[in-house]
Each structure stands twice: as structure tokens, then as C-alpha cells.
């Protein structure tokens, strides 16, 4: 019987010893699953509802639009305050969408960064994983940049090291201690994420999936960041990198200016798709066409400029409203287009005193914006 017992013991211990580790790591459920594969993270980064909508308060507070009092009354308090440039923006208890959404994006980006990094250690489809990792860095940088535009003071070389920027959440650990980083640290993080992205992302623009970034997109965003920091030299360099890789522009003559949505969401000018926050918060402005384009701005467009008809609907009372954007619907575009890069280069060159070069870029752009025979 002792023999039997010992045999039993051996049989008994075997299942405990064998695949215990593997079993303990098995996902508990199928429908809700633990993302582990490249496809899972691709799907996470492809969530355009999350990543494709960004800060809107910056747009509301520009002087490009004019909001009549009636519409203004129907707006959310913070939107109204932002439009009116009131001292206190968030004076009631309401979700701060411009803050919440980018941080939700950062969470997904961080999950992807952590997950893909793990995969890189064992998988062999390195180009794809690199593209995913690059895209995640790009998206995190984009979110941080958008946050900084709304919630941090503008970058000032003199005070950046002491000005308070935004909290930088760079891991998925919920116990990570967060504090407001300085403006300097905020921007260095954005720049370092983007530089990382330019190393990893594919060279070519994915014209089928403009919600995925590419090297040109990363350079373009980097130039936007440098421009906002008033570092024109770096901005110009980054923009040049971008245009060297990808410089396509849409010839507006090819567009149907009578269409209510002249742009397709897949177009050759878009480097990265994004629009402002959609939904009830801005519905009175765009869905109900309550945001009137500043007449002074409209006046700047000369006859022969196709942009008037393609960007705007002119109401019977002469007021202009936004028709739509490169995003392909009625909401303003907040993504990155080559047109922006042309203008960045023009501005930087102008500021650095290279007027000729600047004009050259402006003209390259305008060639595609004016009626062919009139420019």
C-alpha cells in the first residue's frame, strides 16, 4: 500500500506542477479580453472616436468665429466663457471634455506602448510593431500637445522652466504620482515622444487609414510644436523633413464646390485625421450652424479664391458658416495637413527673414487654391 500511496502522490502532484503558470495567465473571458496581440493594439489605436476628436475650446476662443447672443445662451457654460474670454472658464460642475478626452487617449496610448514593447521582445514582425509603437508615441504627443495648448501657458523660453504645464501621465500604473510638470518638461516630453515616433513610423503616408500616423505626420506635428514654441529654425527643419517625404496638395479645382461636403475623409492632403470634439457640447455651433465666420476673415478671400466656396456656406443674409473640413464632415479639422506645413515653412522663413522662400511656399499652396486660370 505504501507503493500505491507514493504512486498516488506522484500522480497528484503532476497536474499541479505542470501547466500551472500557463493556466494562471489564461484570460478569464473571451468577449471581454485582455489585449495582447498586435491586432489588439492596432484596434485600440484605430479607435477614431477616441483619438479622432480633440480639444475644442481653443477653436471656440479664436477670433475666426462670431457667435450670436441667442446661440451663445444655449451653449455650455464653459464653452460660452471660453468664447467670451472670461477669467473663469469652468464655473459650474460639468465634465471638462478638453481635459478628459486627451487623458483617455493617453491611457490607450500608454496601454499600447506597454503592450507593444512586450511584443517587440518576442515577435518577429518588427516593422509592424515599430509602426504601432511609433503611432502610440505620436498619439500621446498629440494629446499632450493639445492639452498644453488649452491648459498650459504658452511656451516662453525665459520662464518655461518655472511655468507650470500639465501632468504627464506616462505609464498605466494608477498609483503613479502625478504633479504639474513645468512647461519646459511638458514640451520636452512632447518633442521626445515625437522624435521617438519619427524613428519608428513608416516613411509613407497610409492614404487608406489617415487616422494612423507616419513619419511625415510626425515631422509635421513636430514643426507645429516648435512653431508654438517660437523656435522657427527647428520648426522649419521639421517641416522641411516632412515635405521632403510627402508634399501632396489637393488642387481645389478638382473639388466640387457645390457639394455640402467637398472633402472626402480620405484625401491626399491629410497627414493625420482629427477634428474637434463632436456631440452636444458643440452641436449649436456646427450642427445648427450657430458659429458665424468672422466677416473680416471672409473679406480676405479675393475673387478667384476657391476656398470661399469650398470652406463656407454663405447664408441669404450674407453670413458665412463653416461647410465642413478635411475630416469629411461638418466639424472643423484639428488634424495635420500638408497645407499647414507649407504655411509653417512660409511663416518660419518669413520670421527668419527669408521672405523669398516664404513667398515661394505660399504660392505653391495658393496655386492649388485658386481657379487655375486666375492665379
Amino acid at each position, binding site marked *: 500500500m505504501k507503493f500505491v500511496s507514493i504512486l498516488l502522490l506522484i500522480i497528484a502532484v503532476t497536474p499541479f506542477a505542470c501547466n500551472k503558470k500557463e493556466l494562471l495567465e489564461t484570460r478569464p*473571458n473571451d468577449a471581454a479580453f485582455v489585449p495582447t496581440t498586435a491586432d489588439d493594439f492596432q484596434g485600440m489605436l484605430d479607435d477614431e472616436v477616441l483619438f479622432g476628436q480633440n480639444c475644442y475650446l481653443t477653436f471656440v476662443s479664436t477670433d475666426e468665429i462670431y457667435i450670436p447672443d441667442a446661440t451663445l445662451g444655449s451653449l455650455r457654460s464653459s464653452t460660452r466663457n471660453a468664447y467670451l474670454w472670461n477669467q473663469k472658464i469652468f464655473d459650474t460642475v460639468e465634465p471638462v471634455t478638453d481635459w478628459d478626452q486627451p487623458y483617455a487617449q493617453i491611457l490607450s496610448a500608454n496601454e499600447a506602448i506597454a503592450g507593444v514593447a512586450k511584443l517587440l521582445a518576442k515577435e518577429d514582425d518588427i516593422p509592424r510593431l515599430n509602426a504601432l509603437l511609433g503611432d502610440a508615441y505620436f498619439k500621446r504627443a498629440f494629446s499632450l500637445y493639445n492639452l498644453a495648448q488649452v491648459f498650459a501657458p504658452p511656451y516662453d523660453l525665459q520662464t518655461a522652466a518655472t511655468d507650470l504645464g500639465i501632468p504627464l501621465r506616462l505609464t498605466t500604473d*494608477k498609483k503613479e504620482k502625478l504633479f504639474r510638470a513645468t512647461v519646459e518638461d511638458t514640451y520636452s516630453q512632447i518633442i521626445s515622444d515625437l522624435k521617438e515616433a519619427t524613428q519608428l513610423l513608416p516613411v509613407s503616408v497610409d492614404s487608406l487609414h489617415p487616422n494612423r500616423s507616419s513619419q511625415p505626420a510626425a515631422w509635421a506635428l513636430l514643426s507645429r510644436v516648435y512653431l508654438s514654441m517660437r523656435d522657427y529654425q527647428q520648426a522649419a527643419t521639421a517641416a522641411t523633413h516632412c515635405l521632403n517625404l510627402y508634399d501632396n496638395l489637393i488642387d481645389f479645382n478638382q473639388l466640387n464646390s457645390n457639394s455640402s461636403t467637398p472633402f472626402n475623409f480620405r484625401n491626399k492632403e491629410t497627414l493625420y485625421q482629427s477634428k474637434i470634439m463632436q456631440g452636444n457640447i458643440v452641436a449649436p455651433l456646427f450642427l445648427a450652424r450657430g458659429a458665424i465666420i468672422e466677416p473680416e476673415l471672409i473679406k480676405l478671400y479675393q475673387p478667384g479664391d476657391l476656398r470661399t466656396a469650398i470652406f463656407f456656406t454663405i447664408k441669404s443674409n450674407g453670413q458665412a458658416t463653416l461647410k465642413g473640413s478635411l475630416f469629411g464632415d461638418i466639424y472643423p479639422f484639428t488634424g495635420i495637413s500638408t497645407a499647414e506645413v507649407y504655411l509653417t515653412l512660409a511663416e518660419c522663413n518669413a520670421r527668419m527673414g527669408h521672405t523669398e522662400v516664404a513667398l515661394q511656399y505660399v504660392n505653391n499652396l495658393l496655386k492649388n487654391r485658386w481657379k487655375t486660370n486666375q492665379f
Partner: protein
Amino acid sequence: MKKNLKMVVPALLLVYTHAVAQGPQPKIPRSYYQDSVRKVLLDILKYTGYGNVIDNALLRRTKTFTCNRDSLTLPELIKELNKQVQLDFSISDADKWISAEPKGIRGKVVDEKGMPAPGVTVQVDTISVRTDENGKYYIPRAIFGSVLVLTAVSRHRVTIKINQRQDMPDLVMRVKASDLDNVNVVVSNGYVSVPKDRLTGSFNFLNRKQIDRTISSSILPTMQGKVPGFVFLENRQSGSSQPFALIRGISTIFSNASPLIIVDNFPFPGNINDLNPNDVESITFLKDAAAASIWGARTANGVIVITTKKGAYNKQLQVECNTSFTFSARPDQWNMPQLGPEDFLEVEKSLYDSGYYNVALFTDYALVSPVIEILHQYDSNKISMQERTDRLKALASYDIRNDINDRFYRPGFIERYHVSVRKGSSKLGYYGSMGYDREKAAQVWTSFDRITTNNNLFYKGRSFELNGTLTGIFSRSINDQPLPQIPYLIGRLADSAGRPVAVAADVRQLYKDQMSNILPDWDYRPLDELHKNKLTQKKSFMGGSLLARDTVFKYFTVSLMYQFFKITEKLENDQSPDSYAARDLRNKTAEINNGVANFTIPKGGIYTRQEMCRQIENSRLQINYDRGDSGFIRIAALAGIESSKTTADTFSLQVYGWEKDRGNFPQLNYADAYPFFYNSSLTALIPYYIDKNRAFDYYTSIFGNAGFTYRDRYSFSVSGRIDESNLFGVKAKQKRIPLASAGVKWEILKDSLFTMNWLSYVNLRFTAGTNGNVNTSVSAYTIAERAPENRYGVPTVGIINPANDYLRWEKSSMFNIGLDWADKGRHFTCSFEYYWRRSDYLLAPSFQESTYGNRVLWDNVAALSGKGFDLSLNTFHTIRDIKVRNGLFFSQATNKVTRYEQTLIRANQFTDQRFVTPRVGFPVYNLYAFKWGGLDPANGDPRGYLNGELSKNYTAIVNGSTDNLVNIGSTVPVFFGGLNSVITYKQLELSATFTGRFKYYFRRSAISYADPLRVKLMGQYDYSKRWQRTGDEENTTVPSLKVWTEENRDFFYANSEATVEKADQIRLQEVKISYNIRKWLPENYPVRSCFVYIYASNIGIIWKANKSGIDPDFLYRFPIPGSCTIGARFEL
């Protein structure tokens, strides 16, 4: 003594030795008749010369000796002596010497059923032994005439004089009647069985007899009102997260609060209601941390350990048959507060007059009641005033509940059959049973069948033991006719000729009638739905277990257990093309052009199927150490590892147009929604989905438990367990959380310091420990789900719950202090326990600071504290032939949230009882109400308080802060108890169970004027009590009828103090009368006993605190009608 004598007399003896001549065997030429042994010995000396120095004390106790044959040789005579005298004589030829020793005695102790009684102390003079597991004992030297004393806990002491016979008869030790229900209490915690008197923790036990006093198809009702600290919660709102039963109140907020149920060593993987109670031998309740912590992470709510019947050793074939028939009344349709036809007519009239239905009537198709139809016809001058009055009167005379009662309900009937066989030798044992239950439900065309079988076979060798079990449960429930879905109680289901009548559904009946020449049959006739909707549910539960046990070394026993179960559940709903659901879908999505209908959906039925298959594998390796009694100390310990693996596959499918014969279904456009022809803003999809899912749980655990008893009076116990699971993880520290407990017990009376003659025992117990609780719906890992494709056609993935490396089990600590005592005669056995509980790391939605990126994270953020007591008092009295036993239990269980950051702030977020909304300082399940300011004497509007002032600004009150709420109290009983009475008179036994629940509240449903077609819902009964004129506010709280009412007027009233009721109640749960008719049967019938019984359950409320006539147990459904059972149980 003997030796001393030997030394003293040798010289004298020598004389005789030499006097006897050598030669053939000398004979003793004498016969004896009732002569003393001393005389025989003297004769021996005289005739043979064989001397002796046998102690007189020994000889004096011997009986007389009789021997008719004379001239026996010495050996012959000694042999005869040995036969008759309680001494062992031996001859030493060398010394010519006879010596004698007291004989050892052997015997067996049995209980009144003839079953061996192990562990009984057998004492003769200074020698004391214990009976072995077969009830046998051996006392090496027992002097004839000495007194043998048998003692055992909970058995009557037996004393018997040892007579001359070598073997004692089987001694019967009767169980002390006061302990009859707790006899032989060998408590099983699922790992080991331990006599109750050695336990420190809080245990309760139900034996077969107690279980038998309830006749039920499932095991849970048999526990009701019989266990202190255990309460059933009947009154569960559907969709509510309240548990089905509680042991000692609540230890968690959002996780499963129901107790863990163990059946034979492992958690029961199926639905416990499927287990046949006839196969259950005993139930143990583990209530405190010390008792339950061996089960580790899932035991904060207590554990119920069910032990099924097993084969027995040394048992003659025993066959037991149990048959019962239960008759139950129809559910009382009028018991739920609903608006009757006349009141309904009145409400509809006033609504109509106020123009409430103008919009609906304008659309043609919007559903209105027949009352409105008549009123409208009169107003459109289609009928005369006379006709209007007549038709309304006729309509009001039809209460649809009459038809529902007649056509959809019947008295219920359940038959139950159960046969079991038990047999065993000293090596093999077998138990097998077969049960068949069939229920003809109170709802017509509804039935339920169940077959259960349970088989146990074991082999036991010298040290090796093998035990195998096979279990099968197969059940099927069928419903061929769904209950009618009618929004009001007015009207009929069949006309006077019995033909089915159409009732309103989805679309106005008049409109359906108008379309009848274009569209095929669109009427909803509930009686015509028969056989067109077949709902079948099949369940099978199959599995077995194998246990091998071997005593490897001296005190060590190794056992290996393996259990495998497969559970499949299949649910099928076959709605034929002629069913209303299918016809309605097809008709409303038709396109109608110029009076011709063009169907966008082809004719077809709707077929739904859900399949669930679960496979559970449990294995355990365990080592037990038991040194038994070694003087003062007894140590028993066990340790082991176990693993549990559950794979659950679900598959569900719904298809439209399934062709049963061919098995295929058409490829249709399932993606697009089809608009309804009468209202294009409404659309429907063609029913279609296929869903497949697999869930996987894996646990491994290490556990250990040790008990230590010193001098039978001080017991100590420790227990611990470490669990590991795939649900938790990442951080190793969180992955393995040890849960441990310890306890002490002091049997005070056994200490010589205390002598209280009137008490038979006083025990003081103290335990402390921690348990856990698991919530399988959360995960430490990032959990994502497949989201719809983005606009570039790429599938996306959304994060549901971000990774939470810190996630861990919920932890619950409990301190328990208990005092047990009984009087000398054990007429009163009492136990009082007080406990404190603190639950921490409770999972709850935690609102994260928004830079986290996800506002809500399920995290270990809440804490709870609770305390309470369990008092139990058992009495036993005999008055001549009448034996009266009572068990009275009374408990308190309170709980209070001590930590939770509640982010809900609006008052109306706390009034919906379907959701758990914990607040610090309040119980988990708590009722809040808007402060009630009475009715406005001017117009009967309900009034509340806003900022401390009377107000009718309902929206402000309802959406305002929680300051507008009044705390009412717990919705689960704070005090509860039960009373079990058993009266036995000869062969007759009468038993009854009462339950009481106190200090809790419920909210009765209230009238809702704003939603009159919901009148079918309850609460409308108070319509007749509504405020009608000034002065009524003195007598009623029901607001006046107001049709165009402010948005929250109804809501405010429904959730105000005015609709709160006390739920306190005392209920007669069951009564059983049983009689053993064995003696009526001829003596030679092979029947050992034959009990016939009559049993009644759900008899009703004896007392309730609320004056509204509402049964607090059945707020959301019809009360379970009373039922009566007759049955017989006989043993062959």
C-alpha cells in the same frame, strides 16, 4: 497480593505435593451443584495435589459452579471452570499449581439503530478504553461483578455489571433525547470531519431528520428557520443584486453576497436547487472566520457544506422509498395591488376628458385602451350616449384576471419519487438512489421533470480506502403558452362562445382592424399563442468523484480527490411563423403602396437557442495527521493543495425564418433596420445573432488546518489558506493573499475550579480570522472589448477596464465570541454568539481623477463594518409519552459602510432600490425617501421639503442634494429568527417551523398618473384612496388625480416617506404531521418502518407590521400559493 501469598505458603503446599502418588491422571471423584469455586479448588488440592493461592477477593465474586459429571480429570475440570466462571484458570504441571486471572472482556457498543458507536469511553474499575470505529472494545482484565461504565458526549450513560459470560452482549447506548437533533455531530467543513465538541468556531448542523421535516424539491427551503444567523431573502426584485440568502448579514457591497455552497468536498458547480434533498445526509453551516477560512478567498459570506448519503459499513441491505404528492392552489390574481376594471375606467375617462389621448388618437396607430375607443366613438358621433353607457358598462364587467385565472392557471401538482439502497460489508459499501420529480406547474402548459441519481461505492482495506461517486441530474422544463402581456385588466381573453379574443398590443386595435384587408392577421390573441411559442429548457449535470486514501505512516493519511463535472444547459424558444411576435414583425415592416402590402421580411418564425456548457475539474491532495488521544493531548492537523479549473462555453443564436425540417435559414439583410410602415421613425431589425463566448477560471490553493486539545477541555485551532487565480495577478503580492484564522475553546466545567452541579457543560469560545470574497467580473488585467469598425473599415478595440495591478481579494475579518451551556438533564441547550466583522478592500466603482483617463475603475476602495449576535435555545421535555422539542433562534446582523467615496450626489440616484448606492454611515441595502410634507389641502398635491421648507418643486427636490432624503433604514432584516417545534407522541410526530424577520423596510409601489397604461403594474390599488376633496389629506397620502402633471410629481410621491412600509413579519413556514404505521402492518411484512405524512407550506403570515395588507415577501410577484403534500416513506 497473589504473589505475596505464594511466598507465604510454599511449605504447607509441599506436604500435599508429595502426598499425591504419581501415575495416571488423577480424577476428582465428585460432582457439583451450585457449589462455590473455593470448594472445587479445595477438592482439587485434595485429590490431585495441585495447589493455588487465588485471591479471595476474586473468588468471592465468582458465581457458583455446577457439574453433573463426576470423575473428571484436572484439565477437564479446569476447562469446565473456565467455561462457567469469570476467571481464567490455568494449570502449571511443573509447579503443580493452579492460577487464575480475571478474564478480559470484549464487546461492542451500538446506538439504538444498531449502528456502531465509535469513540465511547468504556471504563471498568481503573481501566478505561475507547471503542474503535466499529464500536468494539476490549478490556484486558475485567473482574466479574465489576461495573462497566459507558460514557459519551450526547449519549446516555450506561452502567452494567459484568457477569460471568466471556463476551458481553452488544451494549446499546441511547442518544440523549435533548440532543437527538445534534447527535453524533461530526461536523464536516468539506476537508475533514471533526466531532463538534472539539471545534472552536461557529458551526451549525442539520441532520437527516431535520432535513426530512421539510418536503421540497430543492435543498434550500429545508434550511429555512432552522439555523441561527441564516436568513432567506425571498423578496428580491428581479435584476437586483441582492443575494438569495445571508449568513450573518452582509460582508460585501458589489460582489456576490450569497454563501458558498460545498457539496461533498468541493464547491457545487451547478444550480443548488437541482440537487435532490432526499440524497442529502447532513448540512453544516460555517459561520465565522475560524470555521470557514479553510475555504479561503470565497467564504466571507459563510459556507454551507452539504454531505450526501454514502454507503455504510456492516449494513444489511436497506431500501428506502419516499413518495410524495404536493397540491398547490392557483396563484391569486387579485393579490397584487392593481387597478381593477372600474377604477381603470374612471382613470381613463378623466384622462380622456382632459385631452390626454388627443395626440395618440390623432396618430391613428398609437395604442389606446378599449375604454378610450368607446369614448372616442361617441365623441365622433359614431355611437349614441346610450350605447356608450352600455358598452362601457359591459366592458367594466369584464375583469381580465378572471380569464387569466381560468385559462392560464390551474392548481399545481408535484409528484416526487425517490428510492435508495444502502448496503455494506466490513470492506465494501454502496449507496445508490434514483429520484424522479414531475411538476405540473400552476401555469397551464408548463411542466418540469427531473431525474436524479446518486451512487456511491467504497472499498476499505486495512489502511487503504477508495471511494467513488457518480452523480447525474437531468431536468427539463417546458412552456408551450406564454402568459398574456396586457397593459390593463379590463376586457376578456375569450368571447362568450369561448373563442379567443384579440387584445391590445403594440398598435391600436382599430388600426389593426382597418389594415386587416391589406395585411394578414395582425391580432394578438393570447389564447391563440398556444403551441406557437415553445420554450424548452434542458439541463444535465453529470459527474463523479474519486477519493483514494491511505495511511502512509503511523499517523499520516494521504488522500487524493478528483472531481469532474459537466453541466450543459440548453434553452430553446421556438416561435412559429404564426406566433404574434413573428406576425407582428412581418406586418409592421411591410411597405404599403396603394393598398397593397409588400413584405420586406419573408414569412418565418423566430428561433432562439442558448447553450451553456461548463466543465469543472477539481483536484486535491491532502495529508491528515491525527495522533488520536495520547494522554492529555490530542493533535489533529491537515494540509494540502488543490486546484480548480472551470471552463464555461456559451453559445447563443437567434435566427429568423429557420426551417425546422431542412435545418437552414434564409440569408436576409440583418444589418439594416426596417422602418414601420405606420411610423417610419420606428424600425426593427430582423432577429439575428450568433454569439459565442468562453470563460475560464483557474484557482490553485494551499491550505492547512490544525486542532489541538489539551486534557479534553482546552481546544485551539488554526487555519490558513493561500489562493492564487487567473482573475487576479500581475503583482505577486496581490496574487497570493493568505487568509488565516485561530480559535480557542475552554470547556469550563471540566476544570475542577468550577463545579456547578446543575450544568452539564459550559464552553467558552473565541475565534478571530479573515476570509475573502471574489468578484469574477473584475480583472487585474486591462480588459478590452471588440468595438465597431471605424470609418476606414478597420475593427477597433475599446478599453473597458484599465489594468489594475493592485487588485486583490476582498478581505473580511471576523471576531466571534461564543458561550454554550446546557443544564444537567440537557433539557435546555443554549448557545450565544456575538461577532464583529470588518470587511475591507471591497470592490466598488471608484471615480478616478481624470488624468487617469478612465473615470470609473473597479477597485478595492470600500469598507464595511458589521456586528450581530446569534442566540439559540433548544429545549427538550418529556411528559409521559409526549416528547416536546423546541429550537428557538434569534439573530441580529447589522452592517454599515465605513469607507466609500460616493460620487453620486443627486437625491433621486439613491431612491432606486435596484441599484446599490453605498453611503458612508449607512447599511449597504438601505432605503431612502423624500421627506413627506403631507398633501396640499387645496388640491391634493403631494408636498415635500426643499431646504427645510414645504415645497412642491418636485424637480428641485428630486434632482437636489441628498439633504432632501430621509434615511429610513435597512431593506434586509436586522433581527430575524425561527422557531422549530417538534412534538412526538409514540409513533406520531408533529413539527412546525415559524420564521420572524424584524426591523427592515420596504417601499410599496405607488400610483402613477402620468403613465396610465402602466396600470397593470402594481401599486394602483390606492387609486380609490386618492385625495378627492379638501379634508381627505387627513386620511390619505395618495395624491389627487392629475393628468397633466409636473414631471416628477409621481416620482416624488412614489419615493417619498408616504410609501414606505415596515416589513417586519412572523410567518408560519411549514407544518408536518407524520405517523409510523408499521405496527398496523402484519408482523411478517418485510418493512422496518413506514411513515405516512401530511405537510403544508407557504401557509402565510401570522403577524405583519404593515397595515396595507401587503406581504413583504412578495412585493414584485404573486405570492407563492399555499401547498399541501401527502406522502409516505418506508424502509425495507
